[in-house]
């Protein structure tokens, strides 16, 4: 008993924090899998939210506080609400069952799984290639540089080096907002 306790306490517990990121990472993967597999659409959306939250936690655990908080604020606060409202406002269950436009493309289940897996692998490979060949990858791998990304530095970068893309995004979003308002208004009149 005493020996066991001594051995237990002498394990390298101080190395444990390095492995903490596994919790949010696994949670994120499980929630994402559930979001794809569950039958009820609202449950899918809630699981997707859980995976967003886990991603935010992962960012924070890796030292990118600002990005993590923005992830929570934007994805949990806004995007999820958009998805939930979209699900609630569309009669989705009937569409999925009867007149699915992709029905004629559906093959056997096994073939479907293989095709889906291939597409997922391609997307993953593309993403990995984009990450590894980007000029920022080297900076991110260097832990001394990546450890602290204060909000001030991000803001400075955003407003100095990437001001034009930022403005472009802003115009795009405003245009989308005006378009959505127009569509909604048209709908009301008819």
């Amino acid at each position, binding site marked *: 008993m*005493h020996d066991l*306790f*001594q051995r237990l*306490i002498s394990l390298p517990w101080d190395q444990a924090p390095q492995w903490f990121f596994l919790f949010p990472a696994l949670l994120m993967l499980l929630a994402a899998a559930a979001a794809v597999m569950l039958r009820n659409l609202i449950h899918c959306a809630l699981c997707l939210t859980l995976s967003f*939250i886990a991603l935010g936690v992962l960012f924070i655990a890796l030292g990118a*506080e600002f990005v993590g*908080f923005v992830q*929570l604020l934007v994805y*949990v606060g806004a995007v999820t609400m958009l998805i*939930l409202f979209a699900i609630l406002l569309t009669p989705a269950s009937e569409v999925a069952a009867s007149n699915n436009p992709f029905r004629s493309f559906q093959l056997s289940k096994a073939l479907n799984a293989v095709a889906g897996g291939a597409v997922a692998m391609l997307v993953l490979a593309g993403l990995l290639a984009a990450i590894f060949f980007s000029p920022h990858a080297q900076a991110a791998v260097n832990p001394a540089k990546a450890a602290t990304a204060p909000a001030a530095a991000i803001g400075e970068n955003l407003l100095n080096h990437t001001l034009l893309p930022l403005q472009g995004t802003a115009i795009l979003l405003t245009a989308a907002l005006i378009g959505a308002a127009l569509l909604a208004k048209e709908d009301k009149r008819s």
Partner: protein
Amino acid sequence: MHFLENLPLATKKFILDLVKGACGWLCTKLGIALPPWAMPLLLTLVSILVVIVAIIAVYMVMFALMSVAERKILARMQNRYGPNRAGWFGILQPVADGIKMLTKEDLVPRGADKIVHFLAPIAMVAPALMLPAIIPYGTGMVPVELSAGILYFFALGAGTELAVFMAGWSSNNKYSVMGAMRAIAQMISYELPLVMSAVIAALVAGTLSPTGIVEAQGGYSLGFIPNWFVFTPWGFVACLLFYIGALAESNRCPFDLPEGESELVAGHLTEYSGFKYAIFFMAEYVGMFAINGLLVTLFLGGYKAPCPFLEWIPSWCWFFAKLALLAFSMVWVRATLPRFRIDQMMQFAWKFMLPMSFAALIAAAVWYYAGRGPLAWGLSALIVGIPYLALGHFCFTRHHTADNRRYLYSE
């Protein structure tokens, strides 16, 4: 006085020393050799635990006091007695309420989505209890020092909307869904001016850390007027906007229409009973205290004393005094104002509060770059004053809506 100022931190240090001593004594007694990293790790964990226990204890006590104080104050304002059966002047009323809630039956509707219905109160209370972590309660008394603390607050606040949706949808009840929709529409609409007015304080302080914002409000001008942001034209406007937004975010009167009992039974809380209902109630009050704490931090000088000769009172006393004053004002508002109609509520958010928050942002920027002198004062007062008058004139006076009003059924 130095002793009182340091009391909370000294208590924490005492507990840590106690744990350290007890652990060392136990290890020598049992003959266990600790690895060198074990003690610092243990002390870190214990200090985190101490802070968590302190936050939860303080907020639970405030919640209990608030629940009885609110009813007493409301009763006083309405010429009634209020609760006066349990204990001295009804002071034990929260205990009685707690026992009642715990012993009530926990009803779940047959058509409800059981899992989501069970998870909704948890999703509601978890972010609410995490909110108070970044608020500076006194000099050097911040539970978690974050460089992006303000952002943390609003990121967690986003979780509340999700919990309200879960509660409303899973109840499988039309009143619940309607109430949840109203609550989400209200929260999304009022979050915008709320965040904008927090941005104003962060802009002038030049930091997103709550401690930094409080420190930027230190000192006095003319020797006795504190440099709190509320005593500037833009800060006054932003503070009022934040206060209104805080009322709306915590679903308090006059913004309590998601749970308007005359129309929607109790909104998303309709199908909740017993302790789950109590948890929603608690999350609402803790959220209210937290957002008031943020208001104190952003605009009312946080833990700073209002005059130089009152600085002998400990800083954390000032913080809680300001918090209590704000909580009282919210009860006062509840006793005074009637409930908004849903279209009035949306109009007020999008047509008045959002433009005003933009005006205050511009005024703050002008004040910042015009040197903070009399010129800056005048310019920023103009920049917030003109939109205020214009918006009030064009959006909220009757004269151009009276003509095209038609009474369909009375003619």
